[in-house]
């Protein structure tokens, strides 16, 4: 392990990381948001889901620095008297959970399809890639909306809210797998002809073992770059679907749901209910995007 860290601190990647202040800031912000939302129960001043902890009397209080605001609620309160800062922390937890899980499932589907298509070639490859092409010609958000709509239609009406988070994860994962599949397929086609794969075939290893133990580690690099960039996209997609009212319900709100709820108060002057969750969303997505951009350039030998 010590050896690993020594090699890591010696690498071009680490040098490029520490020589770019923007990337260091973006990384710190991402880490802070991820940790404060994972540990929201300890970090947040209140628990917005605990009915005993908020009071309708405190509703629609402006942020602390404005007239009428109290230091008790730093970013103000929403229509039910919940502390906006706390709802943001709990909300980012839902947003990040959906983001990470959907990217993970998209990655798994994409890797499996890509490995099979790239390794077997022939009609299997042609069929899988045609499906991928067709899907790629539609925007991901439309596919996600559609899957979301279909699954909601298949479920009984009463269970929509309970299962909403899972439905979202499935919908986003199904709209994002294509990019992984295409990348993995093209690298697999290159790896397939290399000697170590031929050697593995000659000693008669079963195909799944060759695919996942031998080829997979060699095609993972670009996959991780795509995953970083897509994390930002997945968070945006989740927020968008929730904003449109077909995502996470207000009972356990994500950032998108918070913005949707707050949007109703925009015209009556209570801007903080919308603007702060919105700002949190933008900062998170921007930080992850900067990281993704940097990682892509840093790992691309063409640009060195």
């Amino acid at each position: 392990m010590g050896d690993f860290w020594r090699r890591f601190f010696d690498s071009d990647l680490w040098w490029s990381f520490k020589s770019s202040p923007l990337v260091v800031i973006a990384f710190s912000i991402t880490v802070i948001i991820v940790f404060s939302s994972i540990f929201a129960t300890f970090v947040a001043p209140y628990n917005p889901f605990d009915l005993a902890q908020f009071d309708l009397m405190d509703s629609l209080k402006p942020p602390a620095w404005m007239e009428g605001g109290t230091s008790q609620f730093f970013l103000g309160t929403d229509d039910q008297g919940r502390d906006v800062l706390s709802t943001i922390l709990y909300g980012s937890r839902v947003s990040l959970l959906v983001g990470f899980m959907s990217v993970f499932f998209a990655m798994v589907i994409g890797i499996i399809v890509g490995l099979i298509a790239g390794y077997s070639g022939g009609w299997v490859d042609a069929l899988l890639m045609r499906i991928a092409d067709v899907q790629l010609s539609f925007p991901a958000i439309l596919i996600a909306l559609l899957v979301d709509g279909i699954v909601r239609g298949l479920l009984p009406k009463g269970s929509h809210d309970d299962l909403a988070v899972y439905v979202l994860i499935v919908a986003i994962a199904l709209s994002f797998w294509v990019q992984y599949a295409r990348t993995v397929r093209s690298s697999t086609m290159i790896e397939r002809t290399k000697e170590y794969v031929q050697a593995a075939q000659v000693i008669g290893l079963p195909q799944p073992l060759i695919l996942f133990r031998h080829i997979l580690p060699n095609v993972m690099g670009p996959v991780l770059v795509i995953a970083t960039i897509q994390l930002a996209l997945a968070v945006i997609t989740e927020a968008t679907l929730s904003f449109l009212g077909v995502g996470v319900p207000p009972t356990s709100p994500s950032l998108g749901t918070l913005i949707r709820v707050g949007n109703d108060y925009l015209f009556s002057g209570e801007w903080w209910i919308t603007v702060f969750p919105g700002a949190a969303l933008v900062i998170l997505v921007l930080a992850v995007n900067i990281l993704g951009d940097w990682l892509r350039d840093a790992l691309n030998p063409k640009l060195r």
Partner: protein
Amino acid sequence: MFLFLARRLFQAAMVMLTVALIAFALFQYVGDPVANMVGQDTSVADREKLKQDLGLNDPIIVQFGHFVQNASKGEFGQSYRLRKPVKELIAERFPATLELSIISAILALLVGIPMGVYTALHPKSWVSQGFMTLSLIGISLPTFLIGIFLILFFGVILQWLPTFGRGEVVDLGWWTTGFLSKSGWQSLIMPAITLAIFQMTLIVRLIRAEMLEVLRSDYIKFARARGLHERSISFSHALKNTLVPVITIIGLQIGSLIAFAIITESVFQWPGMGLLFIQAIEEVDIPIMSAYLLLIALVFVIINLLVDILYYSIDPRLRMN
């Protein structure tokens, strides 16, 4: 050329058939059409008769045939929620979405292409750095948030622009347009900007990347070695070759504009097809969902087909094999 066209047409037909199958499956497996059409006190016998009349007892293949036949005539039955024929509803909403998309596309192209070319030609200047930072922020800002922020500043704080609807609409009989009234244009400004920003950032980044790639190639170096004017190199050599992939991108953008219009329409309560679709999803209104699905697929297939043909006529290398 003929073979190329025939193959593309066949592929397009396959895509449409697949989408039709999905839309048909929606009708089959999601919800019960009979239960959606009758009241609670309808007897079992009446329900059975309705089912027979609707052809729901026919074999699946026959039903699918009927579905495709009706769909090609634009018949999708009645909306479960609004109790009106889907054909009418979509025809009512279509002009709003198209006007919004076209104005946004023009806006995105007029601003995006010059910005992309400039950042590629002067990658180190601070203006380009500024453009790139802006485009990163543009990509990180979800469309709906751009809309909300615009509403907050120009609608609520400054009160310059209307925040919802299409304004005063002039009915031309077969088309309703907001282009002929002042309030129509005023209402269009914010939705059009909201919809254009994401496309714009995409166009800037893609043109820049593509052009940087071209500028590195040998024939540009050779043109420099020949002592050609820098302006002539960038515009008649580099930009021309950049445009081929850019056409594809722009073509596909028009499709995604219509898709992203769903979000913009929802933020600004713009009475277009997207708003209709999102309300249909919330209520699981299958006829509208499947009609919209097929319509969008048709738009995408036609655009893809046009882009392919355009490609073929622009790039002589494709004609070789």
